[in-house]
């Protein structure tokens, strides 16, 4: 019996989410007395695979098959299920990112498992197996019991953090037994966002709403983000207006994020917006309306004009860096 994580790679490299998953699996393995194992699909060098050992993974099963690069949901599901069978996985955990969300439900069916997505921590109890997640877009927390022998979970971003725990890793390859017909999609082209901090993974997010007045003022948001090594985000009307791309939209119908620090400039704090950001560890709001609901969700606030506060904040951050 084991705890299995699926660690996605992008061009052969793992991202922070994989190490967070590893940390989570190692903690769960300790709690249950089982081994924490990772499955890796696609071409990843051993030196990269071994990094998972720094977060408590003792064993890695890998299928070095280039075809996984097309991210075919069906093929990836089959492969993880094959690995799960081989290592007798009792709990299988994926990240709650685009790929994890796409694969986990398929995998649950294939492994006859119970699924809970976007869990926010280790199980409250193992027998019965009960985990917590946010529901009603952050308005409530549910304690959910999985009724099946095998469990599939996805882990909400930044909900567990990284825990270094060195372990020596044994790397073995396995054959997921896939044929070309398992890969049915043809990728025409891929555009990767480069040189930008990814919204889901960012520790700090700088976000703007309609109170920023126009797309022309976004250079301020970008400059602050640049100074802080942060990602940029926006409220829904801002992306609807085309001031910013859709993939920056956070909230109920956009991305759900939980950075350590979230800045909201000129965002009213509508319930649908808060649904996507309320699990941020610290929220800072700048709004000229002292009654704006965002202040109820914020930890720190300034009543004032975002367009005036931003340049000063950029300067203040620069100053502290130079100290």
């Amino acid at each position: 019996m084991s705890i299995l994580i699926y660690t996605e790679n992008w061009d052969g490299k793992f991202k922070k989410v994989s190490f967070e998953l590893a940390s989570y699996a190692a903690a769960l393995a300790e709690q249950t007395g089982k081994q924490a194992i990772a499955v890796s699909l696609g071409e990843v060098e051993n030196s990269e695979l071994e990094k998972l050992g720094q977060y408590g993974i003792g064993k890695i099963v890998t299928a070095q098959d280039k075809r996984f690069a097309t991210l075919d949901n069906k093929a990836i599901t089959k492969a993880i299920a094959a690995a799960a069978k081989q290592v007798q996985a009792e709990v299988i955990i994926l990240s709650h990112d685009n790929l994890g969300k796409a694969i986990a439900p398929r995998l649950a069916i294939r492994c006859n498992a119970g699924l809970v997505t976007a869990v926010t921590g280790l199980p409250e109890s193992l027998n019965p197996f009960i985990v917590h997640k946010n529901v009603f877009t952050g308005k409530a927390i549910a304690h959910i019991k999985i009724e099946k022998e095998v469990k599939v979970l996805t882990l909400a971003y930044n909900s567990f953090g990284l825990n270094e725990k060195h372990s020596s890793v044994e790397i073995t390859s396995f054959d997921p037994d896939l044929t070309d017909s398992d890969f049915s999609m043809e990728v025409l082209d891929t555009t990767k966002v480069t040189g930008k901090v990814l919204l889901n993974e960012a520790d700090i997010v700088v976000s703007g709403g309609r109170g920023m007045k126009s797309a022309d003022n976004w250079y301020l948001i970008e400059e602050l983000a640049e100074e802080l090594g942060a990602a940029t985000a926006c409220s829904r009307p801002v992306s609807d207006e085309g001031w910013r791309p859709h993939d920056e939209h956070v909230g109920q119908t956009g991305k759900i994020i939980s950075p350590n620090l979230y800045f909201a400039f000129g965002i009213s704090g509508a319930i649908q917006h808060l649904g996507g950001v309320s699990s941020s560890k610290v929220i800072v709001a700048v709004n000229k309306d002292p009654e704006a609901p965002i202040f109820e969700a914020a930890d720190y606030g300034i009543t004032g004009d975002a367009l005036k506060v931003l340049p000063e904040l950029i300067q203040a951050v620069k100053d502290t860096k130079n100290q």
Partner: protein
Amino acid sequence: MKILVLIGNVPDTTTKIKFNADQTGIDTAGVQWIINPWDEFALTRAMELKEAYAGAISSVVVANVGSSQTEPTLRKALAVGADKAIRIDAEAKDAFFVATQLAQIAGEYELILAGIEASDYNGSAVGGMLAELLDRSSVSAVTGLDLKDDKLLVTREIDGGNQHLLCTTPLLAIVQKGIAKEVRIPAMRGIMMARTKPLEVIAPVESSYATSIQKLELPPTKAACKMVAEDNVKELVRLLKEEAKVL
């Protein structure tokens, strides 16, 4: 080609959540129900495609697993333009239960559209489960969908980028915002027509559930927001560094 759009019936997004007596569900008294926002995007795109390719797309059907209380939501989907609605008459216990119910009717549709999430239990599960039950390909986080000859041209968001794909049918596409620009609001004419469109009620198949809610609770309340004067931005930076320790 026939398109099936899965429709979730969820509380209006501004609903203040109250729990039922044993805290395992919500108190539905006074709740306004809506089409799950992502399903509304999916339905809008399905209607756009049907209008653009009238010859290639013969019908758009919507389906829901729920009690008769969900019918107003299905009528709304018909008013938006769907040709037919199917309701599988059972309480939606969990995603597994819902997906197994839908599997009995979904196989005949070359294209199935599901929303990436439901705004009640935020499961992101039904679409993927259904695809696996039907043993068909699925694409997720879809932000663009079009026909190209006898194939589908799909744009999806991957983690850290975007991808264009050419997919064959049968396909299940799990969609998110971006797929359709403005969601469609039913017009008077649509509402009138919806009254006479077919709403078929089907008995559920024998199934079980894989998860159950033990308890719901409210998130912890936040401490009051600490206000900093507009002309004292330095102080904010100091607090974030020294007190909150996030800079």
